[in-house]
């Protein structure tokens, strides 16, 4: 059940809105984008749903837009130590073409209370555009602190949480359930986004889509179109192909035949 009261909802409507970088996602959101100073919850039933990739892509897009004037910094609160930056670095590099590249900073708290504190501190900082986190514990008190911190600084909190959190109370402005769509394309990822109960239901905003499908270009971290990138193909089965080999530069290359590579000496 949404916790935001009507006065806060009215204040939320006055805040500036930024595009998420995904037109499909913007159509899903009530105001056509993500309101600054708010929390967005991404609810994923498993760990391979693609919610993190989508949240990271949205963060990069928002930081790119913010970097032209102020800030442009993303802070990742990685409590579990599993965030792999090389997956996101090409997105940052691509976003920086023609302007300033967004900055990505990672914080790895060792304890749950440190994680809660770090998210709160990051959301309070006016120089931070987006905070990406996977909070293990999101007690309503802690989430209320985060919501107030984000409102004070106009930062956006992108919280990826398990699907069972749907039944828990939340202070997030938007709650989006993410489910993967099997398509087989290597360079892209299709996801189905469903809007969960949010504060707009209190105001009775009707006429918005409840579920959309979005495609992420995993190469550049933005919305994908089929014809844009040669790596994006339709679903296909595996074919035995010569392996792509990565070796250090000074190791002499061995010849390859069919799908096998010679054993290293």
């Amino acid at each position, binding site marked *: 059940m949404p916790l935001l009261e009507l006065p806060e909802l009215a204040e939320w409507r006055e805040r500036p809105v930024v595009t998420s970088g995904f037109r499909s996602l913007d159509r899903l959101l009530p105001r056509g984008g993500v309101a600054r100073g708010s929390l967005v919850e991404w609810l994923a039933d498993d760990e391979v749903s693609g919610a993190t990739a989508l949240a990271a892509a949205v963060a990069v897009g928002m930081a790119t837009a913010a970097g032209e004037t102020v800030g442009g910094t993303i802070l990742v609160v990685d409590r579990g130590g*599993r965030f*792999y930056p*090389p997956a996101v670095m090409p997105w940052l*590099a691509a976003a920086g073409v023609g302007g300033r590249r967004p900055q990505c*900073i990672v914080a790895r708290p060792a304890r749950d209370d440190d994680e809660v504190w770090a998210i709160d501190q990051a959301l309070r900082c006016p*120089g*931070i555009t987006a905070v990406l986190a996977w909070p293990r514990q999101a007690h309503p008190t802690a989430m209320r602190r985060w919501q107030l911190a984000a409102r004070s600084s106009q930062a956006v909190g992108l919280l990826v949480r398990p699907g069972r959190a749907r039944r828990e109370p939340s202070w997030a402005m938007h709650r989006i359930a993410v489910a993967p*769509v099997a398509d087989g394309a290597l360079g892209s990822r299709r996801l189905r986004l469903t809007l969960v109960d949010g504060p707009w239901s209190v105001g009775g905003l009707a006429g918005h889509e409840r579920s959309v499908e979005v495609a992420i270009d995993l190469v550049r971290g933005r919305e994908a179109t089929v014809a844009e990138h040669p790596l994006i193909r339709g679903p296909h089965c595996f074919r035995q192909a010569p392996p792509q080999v990565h070796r250090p530069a000074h190791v002499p290359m061995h010849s390859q035949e069919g799908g096998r590579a010679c054993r290293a000496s």
Partner: protein
Amino acid sequence: MPRVMTIWLPRWPVQRRLLEHPEWRSLPVFVCRREGRGAMRVVSWLWAQAMQQSRHRAGGQAVIEAPVQILEGTSLAEAMAMLSLAHGSRACHAALVEHDDPLADRLALEKLARWCRRFAPLVALENPSRPGGHPECLMVDITNTAGFFGGEESLARTAAWTLTARGIHARVAIADAPGAAWAAAHFTHRVAGCKTLSEGKPVNPVATGRDAWRRRPRRWAVVPTATMQPLAHLPAAALRLDDRTLAALDEVGVESIGDVLRLPRKSLASRFGPLLARRLAEFSGSRAEPLEPPTDAELPHAAHDFEVPVSLRDGGEALLMPLLERLVGQCVAEVAAHGKGITALQVRLDPGRAGDATRQSTAPVVIDIGVFRPSGSARHLVDLVRLRLARLRLPREIEGLAVEVIAVAAADCRQRVLFSGVAGEAAADSLLQVAMLLDRLAGRLGRGAVFEPQPVADAQPEHAWVAVPAGVRQPAAATAAARRRGDRSAADRSAADRIGGRGLAPARLAAAGRRPVWMLPRPVALETVSVMPVAGGRLSPGDGGPPLRFRWNCETHQVARAHGPERIETAWWRGPCVRRDYYVVETETGGRYWLFRRLRDGAWFLHGMFA
């Protein structure tokens, strides 16, 4: 018998800049000063990469001088002409010209002198031999301290190596007097026949002929006590003489220190001026040359001792914080008066000794605070200390509180604007806020827990990135100024990966969509894996196709599609050779996993998830 160690930092103005900008090592760097009528004179110059290449081409022979001899005082135009003759016009176009900054050079040298206190407590800067010269040597009084390092030879070697590890090229020499040590440091390759008191065997630094493969540039020398014979053959310039005196000596055929020593002492001053006699006396040790360490006036400290021990458990913390704010404020005010900010601060709580039986409880509690940017805000520093205090086990009572500034740096200057809402002002404010946030995060989580990931050109996924201390980027104006100077920041280096300013390099592009957002710290072995059979039905480790089914997290996943293999073979020098075939597999429910097969035994592992 006093013993002095001299650490000579050749071309220090250039070395200081190379420490700040390591990417300049591949370019010729000139440090020049502007004289009358706009003439530019070379103060120092260096081309580090060219020197290394020439050293390799010489077959390991010690190359003491740069490939191109450009002396101090040469006009910049002439120096560029000489560089062009030796290395072509492209070297001139790529050369960097920096203005001389003696103050910054001295401050950096003083900072290094404080670092060298690990060798001995008394470290001083040399007095330049010429008026207007730049100090390039550190004098360390190692009397009765060499034993802690295993002898003077070991001490000199340790000093040279530790400085080299920091990226500083240095020559080290030990002698009885500062003058003698200075001469030995500047001519370490010519200090022959040196003997150490402990080892007793001669050291011949210059090997010839068949021993050429053992030749290494000698960077340290130890002159035995009570003898100047090993230095007798050094040129007279090693006595720190001016050009006029050297010219006068050259006229009469005096070339070496030994020749000078054989001259009658009584007539030296009248024939060659008072400088020669003074330098000779300093060289032999008959004239004292006191060492004056740099003053620490810019590193203030403040302390407060209680008349009676104060308990921290009876509301004493409420007394502690205001006192801490006052002491930190005093230090900040002193530092700010010099236009600087604090980068490192130490707070010490002295516990009470009365009634404490255990030694552990009487140990002082020391809190070291570091900030990413020089801070002039006492409130910010006190907040960082408060965060650390919350994590520590404080003593029951304390007798005193001390605050000491460990390091300072020039504070960022910002010109205030009359009208608010200016974009540049907002950008600078946001950067400052981010810096303060990083300080708070590092203060509570630890400096190693807050970092900025940087890509590394390594095929092995675990080593494809590195965590660097989170630094706050400069505002756009400063970045543009740095770009005009030819400064290449990490952000600009990434531009090298772009093709025509539009796309990514092919290698990065190919790997971009294949890397999961989540990677396990260690690959986890999968329980059961069924693989696609290859043609012929044979299946052996190293063969086979992608997995058809695997079991993970107590669930069996059916693979619908797989992409790969992406074979990664890493270098053997890092340990056991890594040979893996990676697959991006997509299950029937749309989830994606990153698996690999270890080619050594065919075992399957889960390495990442496309979360």
